């Protein structure tokens, strides 16, 4: 898998990978069946099903098949995967079925299981009901971690400790070591819980460690995951059957069960995995329906919840002189998220640092279909003015405009659950000194290269003719295109409003002066006084108009400009998806060609080359599968992202509009005040 190559960097990026990997495996089911959002919210109700459905029936129904499984499939598995020994597997399998005396081989295992089943499950449940979701979840997570481990975490790294905690300490040695191996055989079922992990984490902001253990499990899984499917032979058909059923079951089950603590899931999965067969699936799926509705509501609430990370960009300061001068901004963060070292911290960043952050993020995430918020544009003209110019109003406006844009940019970045987890983001917010961002200079060689890349991208985009299968995407792409155009028009209108308002402000000022002059030459004292009062009122109104123009610009026009840029990023996501599709299609075509070549060879009866051709076919088959999965994965991500973007946009827009209208309201109230003060003056004319 392509992802496995990106695996090397430490914990954080990894935390996203498992999710993606998982998506590719069973994303189709999970994502079309139920919206992602349902998966991540905790629900008290859903803690029940695992116990009822999975544990109890298991003992009765599956004790028999188990013995079979334990004996027969084990061998088959052995044939496929070198490492796992039958003993270990038996250990694992016996865990859930603590009563099943036949199967139990290692007595220690019995202990942890009751623990796992009872204590943690109860505890979170009761917690969940009361408090607001975010904190509660965090608390719950900690609770879970604190409870089972009885002290001795043998692994030295934090990573391992986390997983150790999860599995309880007594059988830790056994389970922990075995698990990965088991996992290798059954990649699909493992997927869902990982998904839950990452989801829960992103919404709830659990400690970063939590994510680590799925990563561990998956490093192995990732490497071996593709293997079972293609190599399905007649001898292992039975195991395969189990695989596919599990696959179904788990995609359903995730939807339903993912809401309880990950812990719960894992245990349940462990429990069910070995013995799952068809009959269980319908039960699980039917039981999943009831809770999912309440979950949605819960999720709504959660998303409405205030985001506990405040970032402000303040104090723009000119550093240096001449053409080497630059503006430095103070980036202050205030948060209660535990992933940060402290609650409040401040760093100084320059504009190119912001651009550098974007470059890093977009390099890492945009290919996966994430919408990476674009930073404000580089403006050579504006900056040169600032560099050269003294304190003139236009450069002050430029700086303020950029400051506000940078602030919004950072807020958008951190409000993205996945981007927030990126180490670069954290580094940007926390670290005192950043290495100077290179290649962000507009006129540098790198800049030129970037332009060139963009151009080739645009060309290749035009050459790709994708026949869209997915109606949702078909419509959405069109919608985004239309919306962008409308937004552009709207933006032009608002810009013209800003200009006209400025004009009005200027004209009002001139008129005020003129009226003052008129007042001075008026020979009627009262009228003269009234006229000079009028001039004063008009002067104040000029101020109001100016404020309104600033409001038009900063609150409304800039908002639209942001959206236009963001819509560009959304389109970029669609392009990424299209590229993935193209890759898949290319591989498909290549496979076709190889097959034809093989047929030709067969016909020409050239056995010596036949083997090579077969190998190639196998290779390309694997590639096709891989690319197809990647395409599905990116489709799912893009879809999720676009939905998220739409939601955010609506909320953001509403907030900004209310702010805009409130500011207008304020101006009107001032206007009333001024005119009301003038009225007696007008009446005093005699």
């Amino acid at each position, binding site marked *: 898998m392509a992802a496995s190559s990106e695996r090397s960097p430490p914990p954080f990026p990894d935390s996203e990978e498992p999710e993606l990997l998982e998506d590719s495996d069973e994303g189709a089911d999970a994502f079309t069946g139920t919206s992602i959002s349902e998966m991540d919210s905790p629900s008290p109700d859903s803690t029940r099903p695992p116990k009822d459905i999975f544990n109890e029936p298991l003992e009765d129904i599956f004790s028999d098949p188990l013995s079979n499984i334990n004996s027969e499939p084990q061998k088959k598995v052995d044939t496929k995967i070198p490492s796992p020994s039958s003993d270990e597997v038996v250990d694992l399998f016996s865990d859930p079925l603590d009563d099943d005396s036949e199967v139990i081989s290692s007595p220690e295992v019995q202990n942890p299981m009751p623990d796992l089943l009872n204590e943690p499950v109860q505890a979170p449940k009761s917690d969940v009901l009361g408090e607001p979701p975010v904190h509660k979840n965090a608390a719950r997570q900690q609770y879970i971690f604190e409870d089972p481990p009885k002290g001795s975490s043998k692994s030295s790294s934090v990573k391992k400790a986390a997983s150790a905690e999860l599995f309880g300490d007594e059988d830790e040695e056994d389970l922990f070591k075995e698990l990965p191996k088991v996992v290798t055989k059954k990649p699909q079922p493992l997927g869902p819980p990982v998904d839950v992990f990452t989801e829960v984490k992103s919404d709830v902001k659990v400690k970063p460690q939590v994510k680590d253990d799925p990563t561990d499990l998956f490093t192995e899984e990732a490497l071996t995951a593709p293997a079972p499917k293609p190599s399905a032979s007649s001898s292992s058909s039975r195991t395969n059957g189990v695989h596919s059923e599990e696959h179904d079951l788990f995609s359903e089950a995730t939807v339903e069960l993912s809401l309880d603590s990950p812990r719960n899931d894992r245990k349940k999965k462990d429990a069910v995995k070995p013995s799952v067969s068809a009959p269980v699936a319908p039960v699980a799926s039917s039981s999943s329906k009831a809770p999912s509705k309440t979950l949605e509501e819960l999720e709504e609430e959660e998303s409405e919840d205030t985001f506990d990370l405040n970032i402000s960009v303040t104090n723009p300061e000119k550093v240096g002189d001449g053409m080497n001068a630059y503006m430095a901004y103070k980036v202050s963060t205030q948060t209660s998220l535990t992933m940060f070292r402290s609650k409040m911290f401040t760093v100084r960043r320059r504009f190119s640092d912001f651009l550098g952050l974007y470059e890093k993020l977009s390099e890492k995430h945009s290919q996966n279909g994430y919408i990476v918020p674009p930073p404000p544009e580089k403006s050579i003209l504006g900056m040169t003015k600032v560099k050269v110019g003294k304190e003139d109003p236009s450069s002050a406006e430029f700086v303020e405009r950029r400051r506000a844009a940078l602030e919004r940019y950072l807020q958008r970045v951190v409000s993205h659950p996945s981007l927030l987890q990126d180490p670069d983001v954290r580094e940007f917010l926390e670290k005192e000194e950043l290495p100077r961002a290179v290649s962000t200079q507009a006129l540098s060689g790198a800049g030129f290269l970037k332009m060139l890349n963009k151009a080739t991208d645009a060309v290749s985009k035009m050459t790709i003719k994708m026949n869209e299968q997915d109606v949702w995407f078909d419509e959405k792409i069109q*919608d985004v295109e*239309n*919306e962008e155009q*409308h*937004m552009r*028009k*709207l933006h032009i*209108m*608002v810009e*013209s*409003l800003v200009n*006209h*308002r400025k*004009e*009005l402000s200027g*004209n*009002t000022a*001139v*008129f005020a*002066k*003129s*009226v003052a*002059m*008129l007042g001075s*030459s*008026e*020979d*009627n004292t*009262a*009228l003269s006084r*009234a*006229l000079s009062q*009028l001039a004063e009122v008009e002067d104040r109104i000029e101020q109001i108009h100016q404020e309104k123009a600033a409001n038009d610009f900063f609150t409304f026009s800039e908002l639209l400009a942001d959206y236009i840029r963001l819509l560009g990023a959304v389109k970029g996501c669609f392009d990424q998806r299209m590229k993935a599709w193209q890759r898949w299609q290319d591989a498909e075509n290549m496979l076709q060609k190889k097959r034809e070549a093989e047929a030709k060879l067969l016909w020409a009866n050239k056995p010596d080359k036949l083997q090579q051709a077969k190998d190639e076919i196998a290779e390309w088959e694997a590639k096709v599968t891989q690319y197809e999965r990647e395409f599905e994965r990116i489709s799912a991500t893009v879809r999720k992202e676009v939905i998220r973007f*739409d*939601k955010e*946009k*609506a909320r953001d*827009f*509403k907030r900004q*509009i*209310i702010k805009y*209208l*409130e500011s*207008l*309201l304020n101006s*009107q*109230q001032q*206007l*009333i005040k001024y*005119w*009301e003060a*003038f*009225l007696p003056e*007008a*009446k005093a*004319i*005699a």
Partner: protein
Amino acid sequence: MTSISEDSDKEKVHSVSVDLNNDSSLVIDIPDALCERDKVKFTVHTKTTLSSFQKPEYSVQRQHEDFIWLHDTIVETEEYAGLIIPPAPPKPDFEGPREKMHKLGEGESSMTKEEYAKMKQELEQQHIFPLGRVHREQLTSRMKSAADQQTSSHPMFRKDRNFQIFLEYDQDLTVRRKNAKEMFGGFFKNMVKSADEVLISGVKEVDEFFEQEKNFLLDYSSKIKDATAKAEKMTRSHKNVADDYNHISGALNNTAADNNTAFKKHLEKCAEVFEKLRKVEDRMASDQELKLTELLRYYTRDIQAAKDLLYRRARALADYENSNKALDKARLKGKDVAQAEENQKQCLQKFDKLSESGKKELTSFKARRVVAFRKNLIEMTELEIKHAKNSVSLLQGSIEILKSN
């Protein structure tokens, strides 16, 4: 044919204010204006108790040219030289919007019927109606001051045939438009007048009152001209802002039409707010135009009329001095003395008469101006407050609604 009359509250206020004259022996108002192809017709409504009118009430239709004709005939009448003759209003520019309408018609094929209808209505409401309204106001105020003068200070007007014809004659006056020669003549006359003004400015003023008035009017006239231009600019840009609101509202609606997420609701609401804001802003701009800019514009012209009066008096003074010189010469030569004496006497008489009525006129003019400023400033302030309050409640309501959903 489109009627420009809008029965808004403001209009009524204004009609009432015309009737506010203490003397109700002659009341004139213009309740209606009609657009008829390329003509705009105003209904002039007269109510009178004066015996010189045959009926107590008249209602006739007059065009802009008729008003100009009335003005010209009054100016040309020697008898009225000592009066400040109410200036005729400038011709409203109906051509601009009409041209736009025409273009709209040409581009009709490229847009749907609804769009066309909407654009047309927009044009009418935003350009033609306000123009008609403004012009009507102007004419009304002109007629009012004419009526004022007729009934109060200058019974002379009462006997003016032309004025009476203007008010009474129920057919079209069919005043022909000035032809090119006359136009040129008018222009030439103006040139001569300006040159003459410069010449006689050297004549030493004998009366301190007039000296002061002259200085004041010269100063004031330039200031008010400036203020008018600035006010016009200001109201124009205010109108632009209102137009922008309109466009934004339209663009928001377009955006909303193609959207089907939660965003749509906000966009629609927002469009609605802007549409309403546009109306308020538009009203604000046109009321400012009506009450402030128009006041200034009117007095710019009225002051010109006052200056004209001063010119006529100065001319008479110059004539008188010339006749004095002529008399001296005649006496020296001993020839035509009686004729020169007669001439000198006439000039003096004329000058005295002009001085006397001019003094009265200027004094009353000053009082009139102060009253008019007071009235318009109060009205404008009240309207500004009204509109601002409207938009405050509008904004408050919208914010509430936005917050609640």
